[in-house]
């Protein structure tokens, strides 16, 4: 009842957001000075090709009908032709999405693996030495630019000790797990401080809750108390914080993919900007937008799965 409504509403609420993303992507072309057809086709295009594109995209018609035509191409999976690779932009992008998803997902998992125990240590004795350490040290990660941290990690763990490859994506599940460890760790270290903070705060909150006293009054041993009562309640607010920040980090993967030479859409984005390959840049922007929206949806759905009390309130 209430929870299904919540899920359905959350999905329906994506529609206006998704439309907003397409409108922004649509306007990108009009923000570039000069003839959009020239921008898209490149400087070597023949006048005939430019004229054809003008007709196809309705470039002399009002913006509304141009947008309509844009959406029509979009739902048919047509993002235009890459100027540099000479292939459809859509398929170029699609082949590179998995690497980026791997990086983001792996980083999220590592961030959780790092954050839960540290938050637990910090919350176990509020304002103790360990609490201060746990709160201060991760800030170094936050203050250090990711590319710099990435380079340090490559230096320490790849070049010096050969524990991990310097770059690349690897093959197969195990290969990805091994090759992507350093880039994912770099992203996770950037993500961890925020997650630790939010988890620590919600753990302290939960530890003060009356139902924890009830559980102690039942004689629930410390380990079980933590797993069944504290953690389960404390992750609920942290999931939302994690979701929002993964959204930001999807943009951040652009940098990390270039440092570690990972064939994801972030790397494609940089290359295409350098090549003035507009259709690909536009397509990647769209995919980034969609990913951010989907990650937030995922966070909301996990929230709904973790918290039986969720209801859709308008």
């Amino acid at each position, binding site marked *: 009842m209430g929870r299904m409504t919540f899920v359905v509403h959350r999905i329906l609420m994506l529609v206006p957001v998704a439309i907003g993303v397409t409108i922004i992507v649509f306007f990108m072309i009009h923000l570039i000075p000069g003839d959009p057809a020239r921008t898209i086709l490149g400087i070597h295009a023949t006048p005939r090709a430019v004229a054809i594109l003008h007709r196809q995209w309705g470039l002399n018609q009002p913006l509304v009908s141009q947008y309509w035509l844009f959406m029509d191409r979009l739902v048919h999976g047509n993002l235009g032709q890459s100027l540099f690779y000479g292939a459809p932009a859509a398929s170029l992008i699609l082949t590179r999405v998995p690497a980026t998803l791997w990086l983001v997902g792996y980083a999220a998992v590592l961030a959780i693996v790092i954050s839960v125990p540290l938050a637990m240590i910090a919350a176990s004795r509020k304002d103790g030495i360990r609490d201060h350490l746990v709160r201060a040290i991760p800030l170094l990660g936050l203050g250090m630019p990711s590319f710099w941290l990435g380079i340090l990690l490559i230096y320490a763990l790849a070049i010096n000790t050969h524990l991990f490859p310097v770059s690349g994506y690897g093959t197969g599940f195990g290969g990805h797990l091994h090759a992507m460890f350093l880039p994912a760790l770099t992203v996770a270290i950037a993500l961890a401080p925020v997650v630790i903070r939010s988890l620590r705060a919600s753990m302290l909150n939960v530890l003060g809750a009356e139902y924890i006293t009830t559980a102690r009054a039942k*004689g629930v041993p410390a380990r079980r108390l933590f797993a069944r009562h504290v953690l389960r309640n404390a992750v609920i607010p942290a999931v939302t914080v994690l979701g929002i920040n993964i959204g930001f980090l999807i943009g951040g993967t652009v940098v990390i993919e270039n440092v570690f030479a990972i064939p994801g859409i972030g790397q494609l984005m940089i290359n295409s900007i350098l090549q003035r390959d507009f259709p690909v840049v536009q397509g990647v922007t769209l995919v980034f937008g969609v990913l951010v929206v989907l990650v937030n949806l995922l966070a909301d759905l996990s929230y709904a799965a973790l*918290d039986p009390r969720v209801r859709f309130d308008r």
Partner: protein
Amino acid sequence: MTGPTAAAAAGPILAVRDLRVQISGRRGTVRAVDGVSLDVVRGEALGLVGESGSGKSMTLRAILGVLPPDARVTSGQILLDGADLVPLSQSALNRIRGPKIAMIFQEPMSALNPVMRVGHQIAEGPRVHLGYSRSKAAERALDLMRRVGIPDPERRFRAYPHEFSGGMRQRVMIAMALSCDPEIILCDEPTTALDVTIQDQILRLLARLCRESDVSLIFVTHDLPVVAQICQRVAVMYGGQIIEHGDTRDILLDPRHPYTLGLVRSAPDVEQVRESLVPIPGSPPSLVSPPPGCRFHPRCSFAEEDCRVMPTPLRLLPGGRSTACLHYERCAEALAAEQVTP
């Protein structure tokens, strides 16, 4: 009801001796419980009454070893079947909480884990303490849910606390408390958050269950009629101390401490109600720097010079009751005077 001779023969299952609890706070050390002693006999319900802030909850939490982080027991003994609980570690206490002592809290909403199924919360005790398998513990939980009168337990087992009404949640708390057959249940105002009709149902339920399974209760409440309904004996707390103690009828109908007299007069409907409700003037004492002598003297109309300086330990009176008042006869005189003028 347990008669005094049977009680003496059985010996108390719980004996608290000179318990002191201090809470360190910003404005100094709060002496929340300051020398409390009490005995609970098997099958008996002991009422613990007093104004807000008098230390009732802290006493119960100290007995169970679930004090808030800043609070600690500074001295005294808590003897359960003769063994002292005060020096025990939390993990040692975990073996006692549940199978020996259980607790029911005032706010069943906030006292239940919001993200755990109600059935699992009830089954947790038997899982942990009685070594029951998942399915056996679930059976036990369903059985308890039936005993405390939760309708349709098979379906309610998988529900979450927010799907229950206040009264049903309190039944869940009671089922949880009973789940490992404790000898004594500490009830901290278990009916205060409920409306009157539900209150009555819950009280009857508690009283019945205790009778059936011979469990003892310490029952904290503000509500004197509730005490009259279920407690055989009552202890009155004021400023962290017990100031009067005895059989419920004696204490409520014929108090021997001016504070108890004030409580009775300010309560709406104990049997044989006095005509007018008179609130006790003044406010509760500071527990950081309590007044010297009798802690009640600043608010007491019978107070004399000695009340301001003399220590006032509980003194035994005829009839097995005790009071901390130096001039307790004044209460009897006041009551007698009242009864002649109708």
